[in-house]
């Protein structure tokens, strides 16, 4: 193994800095909870958080006052409802004011792809009649030089650092992502630095020709944290803890309850707790 493999503590300390633009990506599946919790423990500040579907981890980071700005396309607790800490920040500026840049899923998916492609912007057919174009100055339009059609344009997303969670790394550091792959490959290839947290480290990835792979030379650091995606899930390893998402709605509803929960379950915890949290959720292999 090379020094590409590090502890989560070291990977966050080395790659994420105050003021960074950072994506903790994942589309319901493979949400990098362990990485986000480590960032919360290290008390980072003034972050610009990017994610298509900011859910509980961004609710937690925003509630802990770490975010200066949020770039997003759907800010909800998936299948449950609203993000109450985000709402408190937007509506009541608690614990502090947050700037928001809001897009549609199409726009952000295209913007990540443009970032991974080394392009300055993304072009797509979108935002027709949509109110977001009036409140977000980063939504513009271009005229197709061939057909004359007016198309939407948004700037490419180029994070300073992207954190993702994946099933496997081999010993060289090649990464395998399976199941709902979301926008993680694009978010990784669009970033300056990439940290991947994996469920397991194996001798060979033992997969097929068209699998979603990030070669080791595209990844800055790798950390092994079994269960590190809980209460999200890792396809083939453990199932989504839907009850925890339902429970979060109650925890996040009250500032004091939230802070107490964060102290007990994040600030005083370590990455090792994740393997206990998935004990009853494991998929038979």
């Amino acid at each position, binding site marked *: 193994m090379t020094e590409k493999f590090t502890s989560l503590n070291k990977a966050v300390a080395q790659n994420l800095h105050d003021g960074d633009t950072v994506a903790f990506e994942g589309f319901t599946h493979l949400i990098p909870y362990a990485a986000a919790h480590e960032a919360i423990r290290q008390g980072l500040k003034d972050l610009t958080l990017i994610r298509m*579907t900011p859910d509980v981890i961004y609710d937690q980071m925003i509630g802990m006052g770490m975010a200066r700005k949020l770039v997003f396309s759907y800010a909800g607790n998936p299948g449950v409802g609203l993000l109450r800490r985000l709402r408190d920040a937007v509506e009541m500026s608690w614990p502090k004011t947050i700037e928001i840049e809001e897009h549609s899923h199409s726009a952000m998916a295209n913007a990540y792809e443009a970032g991974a492609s080394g392009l300055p912007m993304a072009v797509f057919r979108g935002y027709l009649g949509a109110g977001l174009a009036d409140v977000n100055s980063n939504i513009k339009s271009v005229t197709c030089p061939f057909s004359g059609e*007016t198309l939407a344009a948004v700037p490419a997303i180029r994070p300073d650092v992207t954190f993702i969670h994946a099933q496997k790394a081999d010993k060289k550091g090649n990464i395998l992502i399976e199941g709902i792959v979301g926008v993680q490959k694009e978010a990784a290839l669009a970033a300056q630095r990439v940290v991947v947290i994996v469920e397991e480290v194996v001798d060979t990835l033992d997969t097929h020709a068209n699998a979603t792979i990030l070669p080791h030379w595209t990844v800055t650091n790798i950390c092994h944290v079994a269960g590190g995606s*809980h209460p999200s899930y890792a396809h083939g390893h453990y199932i989504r803890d839907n009850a925890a998402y339902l429970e979060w709605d109650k925890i996040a509803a009250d500032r004091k309850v939230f802070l107490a929960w964060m102290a007990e379950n994040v600030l005083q915890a370590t990455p090792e707790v994740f393997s206990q949290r998935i004990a*009853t959720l494991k998929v038979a292999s």
Partner: protein
Amino acid sequence: MSDPGFTSDEMMTIAASRVMKNDDICFVGIGAPSAACNVARLTHAPDITLIYESGTIGVRPDILPLSIGDGELCDTALTTVSVPEMFRYWLQGGRITVGFLGAAEIDRFGNINTTVIGDYDAPKVRLPGGGGAPEIATSSQAIYVTLKQSIRSMVKEIQFYTSFGHGVGGDHRQRLGIETNGPVLLITDLAIWKPDPVTKEFTVVSIHPHATREMIQETCGWAVKYSDMVDTTMAPTKKELAILRDLKQRSSAAHTGDAMKATMAT
């Protein structure tokens, strides 16, 4: 009033399921649309293609997903593609026959708000936002909407245009260069609505059993218009009800089961 043997919510889901066709390629919103689409698949439309925005194409879930990205969707899908591919090739590429959406607020022209209540920069209630909806609304060949009627949800003027329906009515879509049909069906817990062919305002074409014109107006924020011919929606059949209740029961057990203990233990 006597007990009809089904709830208005069940009537809504079953009425919505009936409009789905076996050869539809449907982009499914979470919640009420997801239940309706899966009842359709389990009754009259076994070959319907259901697509969720997590990239899962041709899903056949045993339990209703809580989120658009539950493992159950990927496990039962024909294929799972990346999210950029989902939105570029499959939605923008024009492959979707029906986009099925829910809504926090809808107006009489099928414009939907799921973004904000109050001023955008100083909101009274910050809602989750549009997600895939702004482009689903314009790239799907047609849009169906299902929601429970209330003064808060069916409003005279929506507070934010998250996704565009028929705008101010008439040919507003065409004037913006939108070539798809937009909202062509609204299914509520009380009635089925279709847009007037000229004005594009939603008009009631069918009233559910045990619903009345008074109930429809009391729970709607605009003056309700009726089609010249108003039908009575067929009550749910025993088979439809059994399939819906089974599905709901399995789903609810799966979402709130033992996993709760596992989380709170640590």
